């Protein structure tokens, strides 16, 4: 896929509307093309602004307590491992459900 073809599809990709085949080709291309990567970044910022256009709701109070409890639970084994290793500071912090977080189009 060349730059012109990628540019044609960038907006759809940023919206998550490119199909899996197109998405894979775009990702391969922008990995090596600064110009197209920059255009994709701009398109993704426009797409993200759509989220701000939606009505904002207050998160339920239980969300915060659930998040704090879960992160606390995950931190305990890390602290124990650090103590056992006699290490300090940064840890790997692998979570049980630690999956990638990089934005990607739906497949």
């Amino acid at each position, binding site marked *: 896929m060349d730059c012109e073809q990628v540019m044609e599809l960038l*907006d759809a990709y940023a919206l998550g509307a490119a199909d899996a085949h197109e998405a894979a080709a775009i990702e391969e291309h922008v990995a090596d093309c600064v110009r197209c990567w920059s255009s994709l970044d701009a398109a993704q910022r*426009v797409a993200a602004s759509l989220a701000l256009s939606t009505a904002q*709701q207050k998160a339920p109070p239980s969300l915060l307590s659930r998040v704090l409890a879960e992160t606390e639970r995950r931190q305990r084994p890390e602290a124990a491992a650090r103590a056992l290793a006699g290490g300090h500071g940064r840890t790997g912090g692998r979570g049980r459900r630690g999956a990638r*977080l990089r934005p990607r189009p739906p497949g």
Partner: protein
Amino acid sequence: MVRNRRLLNELKSGLARVDVLSSDPEYRQLGDDELMRRLFYRDRRAFEAIFDRYGDLVYSMALRVLRDPHLAEDISQEIFVRLWSKPGSYVAERGRFLTWLISVTRNRAVDEVRSRGRRQRYETASPEEQERELPAGNANDPALNAQLAEEARSARAALAGLPGEQRQVIELAYFGGLTQQEISQRLGQPLGTVKTRIRLGMQKLRAALAPEMKRE
């Protein structure tokens, strides 16, 4: 750590209100990238500040896609727990933290819709919903709230300025999680027409939001 344990105990005993998280004032001054950097060192106050800043936004985005408060809460929890577990997933050089966080949330919510096979009929938000003002992320950070409210107003105005058919395909793609092909089938419109509407709509949004983008 100790502070967090105390908060948890207070939550359990009903002494603390959890709907307003009073993040550390010192941390409220820090930018998103600095807060994320501190997560590498397991800084819980940095994490709380991020939640305080964007908890409502993440939940709102998940709710808009999923249309189910319980699922939206589950997905929001997952997003924040992953943020804590894998702070390295965000690479500052690749773009703005807020853009990344919204994309992650949107993509995870769409994945959930797809995995459940819930091809629910997507409906655009009512005008009342669209016009509702941001109650703003949190009461502790007026400057951030003002900035997000301004961005929200600009985004709403830009979206409202699109011709209806362009707005429709963009919302079906972004919030409905549909591919161009699926939108074409849903609307009974040729694929080429859908592609053109998306491109034209995004061009107009880009032009309308250019001043906001420059300020970022």
